[in-house]
């Protein structure tokens, strides 16, 4: 149920996100989800890639500061209020979200969001009990 996310440190400068995209292109890796968080002078590019371990080693070899982190992927009804309902469950379980972003492709009438939480294993158990549908890594990395 845990998804591997690849994060890369970037300076806030033109062309830097592209450098990462270029590495993935060369390695023939497809992106599933992507988000760019920024602070005053640097950013963190977070991605879910079809082969995270390969992406990690490719980027590392290209001298990027890169990290693998574990996140979860939650299915959300693709309709008004869909996110609110799911987050209501999170709240009930006392789960704090560090950050979240959505998966690029749509899966029929469902959307998928990627979430970073603390104590990921506990959170997964809690959400399962609440019947929140979490996607498996295969579902996320492969064609959805």
């Amino acid at each position: 149920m845990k998804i591997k996310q690849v994060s890369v440190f970037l300076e806030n400068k033109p062309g830097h996100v592209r450098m990462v995209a270029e590495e993935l292109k060369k390695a023939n890796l497809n992106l599933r989800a992507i988000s760019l968080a920024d602070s005053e002078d640097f950013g963190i590019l977070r991605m879910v890639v079809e082969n995270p371990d390969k992406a990690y080693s490719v980027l590392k070899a290209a001298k990027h500061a890169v990290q693998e982190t574990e996140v979860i992927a939650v299915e959300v009804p693709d309709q008004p209020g869909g996110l609110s309902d799911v987050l209501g469950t999170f709240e009930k379980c006392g789960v704090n979200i560090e950050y979240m972003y959505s998966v690029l492709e749509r899966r029929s009438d469902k959307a998928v969001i990627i979430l970073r939480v603390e104590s990921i294993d506990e959170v997964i158990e809690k959400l399962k009990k609440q019947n929140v549908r979490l996607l498996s890594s295969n579902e996320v990395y492969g064609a959805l």
Partner: protein
Amino acid sequence: MIWDEKHECMPREQLKELQLKRLKSVVRRVYKNVPYFRKKVDALGLKPADIQSLEDLQKLPFITKHELRETYPFGLFATPMKEVVRIHSSSGTTGKPVVAGYTRADLNLWAELMARTLTAGGTTAEDIVQNAYGYGLFTGGLGIHYGAEKIGATVVPISGGNTARQLLIMEDFGVTVLTCTPSYSLQIAEVAEEKGLDMRKLKLRVGFFGAEPWSDEMRKEIEERLHVRAMDLYGLTEVIGPGVAAECEHRCGLHIYEDHFIPEIIDPDTGKVKPDGQTGELVLTCTTKQAFPVIRFRTRDIAKLEYGKCECGRTFARMNRVTGRTDDMLIIRGVNVFPSQIEAVLVGIEEAEPHYQLIVRKDGPMDTLEVQVEVDQQLFSDEIKRLEQVERKIAHEIASMLGIHAKITLVEPKTIERSMGKAKRVIDLRKEG
């Protein structure tokens, strides 16, 4: 105005005789009393008696800042400690500082030279001198202090900081002379402007600024904003402190007090003395100091000497304002900063690797320091707040070690320019003039 006309305006032939006499004497004395110097001279197969002309000075070995650290703290003192009545020191915080000792005669000499300096800029016994240089181990505060007292001026030993109070005292006491670093003078101007204080209504008329390189452009700004005549002075702890050279009213270079210090200009790469009028590294020899007389000290300051007579009547050589240094030492808001000190801070922080670069800029009147630190695998965290914590930690450590605020910027790995495998540590974007 001239404080010591007899010496300051001495005909050059006579001055050279005096220099030679004093040079011979200091070489003999230091050779006898400082084993470190003796060893270096012996290694060259020289004896003090080989110094028979001023040109013979060129035979003697240089002494570098690095060697001064090697002999820390008192290794180069030429008198017994019982004759040393005061110690000053450079601001080396993690690297070893340079320690300077003064006998009573040295302190008298220093006060004399500072009296010359202040007089050359128009200070008299009628003046009230607000001395906003830091008091303490730093030579600026006490150097100015005793020089002003020697003239008979009224000294306000306020030291640096508390700008609002500086202005209050300046106004209430009717201060006429201000002494501080050039960047601090602009800080004072800024606060005065904020308070709506009209500097033209104050009695302040002249300022003596030094301890950090500053440009003619900055002089203009200081003069306009503080409504003073801004005078440049030059000195360094290793030689005596302030009081090595200063401008006269014509402001066409700084007169070096050659009766006590012999200047040379060398090529920093070859060590060869350059012909008159050429730019190079300034080397100074103290000929009269007792406790800590450096011989052929490489200042690392880039300068040019002018020997033509000045309209003021002084016969001393004039050096242009110091516009650069041969090494990486930075003077930021009057504080000496060595890249190695920043490195030491980074080494001490577990998360950070010492791949860094210092960028110095001028932001309004103040120097700003940015420290770029490369993010590597170890430092990188997926969480922005962790990275920001590391930034704050580095800034905090630098502040507590060096007493200056630095902006920390994290940069991508392997992005700091390296030449021949050696990282370029300093980019100084302050305008040098």
